């Protein structure tokens, strides 16, 4: 991962030399996001490389979800571009969106939802193949929800629901996952659980891009951090912890602190 815009680029170029050998998968080039002529994020540039674990953090309404929707091609940037590299296509990105109102009492079994992750691979055919069904079972097993296969989604706990949606996301693709606040509203145990599942996927080679409110966990698990707000930061988690966080958190600056750090629930 590299920062293309800011002065930090020079500061840390030596340290990131090694990592930059991994192939880039996704680049944001001078992105400006917003709607109705109002800019939310200005001139954002970053690159995600294979195997990276990127956490996108920032205040509510700073444009994190907008950024993710733009990366997915669900909405157009005001200027700049998102480039998929190295053969990445939208079909090779798994997505875990925030849950919607409709899903609350939707009659769907866990198996049906996980299987729907394969919809992009249906291509011209109408029905899921035997291989896809087997793969869906395997993905449910990875997420530890195989015993819930016949249960109704609406009756599950928050943590179970997120695992179902994560299983659907990896059914869509194991190459790259985009997760929009996967732990929002979960209790500490379920949160820790989901983080370790995501970490395991990352260790096995899946590139992770995650929006998070949980700064402590972001610093702990992520390899890279993107802070979205009036100021932008993009760099490794270590750099963020060392330089930027400290700078922002000097005593006189208390009010501008974006997050109150809380102990990580492990």
């Amino acid at each position, binding site marked *: 991962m590299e920062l293309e815009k800011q002065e930090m680029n020079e500061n840390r170029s030596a340290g990131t030399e090694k990592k930059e050998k991994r192939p880039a998968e996704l680049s944001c080039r001078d992105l400006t996001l917003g709607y109705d002529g109002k800019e939310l994020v200005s001139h954002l540039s970053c690159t995600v490389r294979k195997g990276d674990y990127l956490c996108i953090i920032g205040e509510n309404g700073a444009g994190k979800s907008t950024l993710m929707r733009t990366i*997915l*091609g*669900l909405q157009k940037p005001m200027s700049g571009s998102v480039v998929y590299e190295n053969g990445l*296509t*939208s*079909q090779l*990105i*798994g*997505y875990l*969106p925030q849950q*919607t109102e*409709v*899903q609350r009492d*939707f*009659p*769907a*079994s866990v*198996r*049906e*939802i996980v*299987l*729907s*992750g394969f*919809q*992009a691979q*249906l291509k011209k055919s*109408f*029905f*899921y193949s035997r291989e896809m069904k087997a793969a869906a079972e395997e993905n449910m097993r990875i997420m530890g929800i195989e015993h819930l296969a*016949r*249960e*109704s989604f*609406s*009756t599950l706990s928050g943590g179970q629901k997120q695992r179902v949606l994560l299983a*659907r996301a990896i059914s*869509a*693709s194991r190459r790259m996952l*985009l997760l929009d606040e996967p732990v929002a509203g979960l209790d500490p145990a379920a949160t820790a659980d989901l983080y370790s599942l995501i970490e395991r996927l990352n260790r096995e080679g899946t590139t992770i891009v995650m929006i998070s409110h949980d700064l402590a966990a972001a610093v702990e698990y992520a390899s890279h951090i993107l802070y979205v707000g009036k100021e932008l930061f993009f760099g490794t988690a270590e750099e963020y912890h060392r330089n930027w966080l400290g700078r922002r958190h000097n005593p006189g600056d208390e009010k501008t602190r974006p997050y109150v750090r809380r102990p990580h629930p492990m």
Partner: protein
Amino acid sequence: MNSIITYLQYPFARYALIVGVLVALCASLLGVTLVLKRFSFIGDGLSHVAFGAIAVASVVQLGLTTLSHTAFFQKVSFLGNGLSAFAELMKNTNNMVIVLPLTVLAAILLLRTGQNTRIKGDAAIAMISVSALAGGYILMALFSTSSNLAGDVCSTLFGSQSILTLGISDVVFCAVLSVISAGLFVLFYNRIFAVTFDENFSKAVGTKTSAVNLLIAVMIALIIVLAMSLVGSLLVSALIIFPALSAMRVAKSFRSVTVVSVILAGFSALFGVLLSILLSTPVGATIVMVELLVFFIMSIAGRFHALSF
């Protein structure tokens, strides 16, 4: 019981049963999607538009017949013959050649409006559907050839007093539309489920969600036109939504809800038609009342047992 058997010896009673059950089966297919995708407003709006379309169609039919008899078209005989042939075709298909395309067009337009968040989608649709109702009524009042205008309007809104006037051509038309809409539903079942459950995810992984939404809108239009002849434009939504709501009380997966709602719809239609023959009540309204009863039974059953397969 005996009187039912006596009735069933007549072809018109058998036709009524076949058409009733086919229409109800098809109408129930998209119920879940309609309820959960907040598309119910499209169903309601469309049925009103279809009412207007029927009025327009009968005026056009009348106009064409009159026109083909005028001096000009009598002279240019191939044009005159063409016009009267088309008028004849409209008459034979119950004006479907005009009503069907108009309703499909309206479905596409309503879908667009509904998705546009700038205009208040619901309000726009209410406006369109009420205008279609009013316009249709005026057209019928101005150009009606029938001496019984109130009866005509009533049967368009609430369905015929009886569907015992159906001929074999109605049965064939109904069977063809049913096969088309059921076939489309089965083929696109997986995509319809995916887009109904989570449109954002579908779009993100590259499914053409606008195409699927268009398909859903066109199928709703087909089904509404199909069902209108049975229950009339005001009761159409009931035929689409009731079975799904009842099934959702007892079934917990999308497939089981779909299967259960089709079965419930079939039974309701069967009992509704038989009841209406026995009690000489209006067919459409009787079916809707049976479906309401089924809904109450399922609500109670749902407290004890849930299905998922």
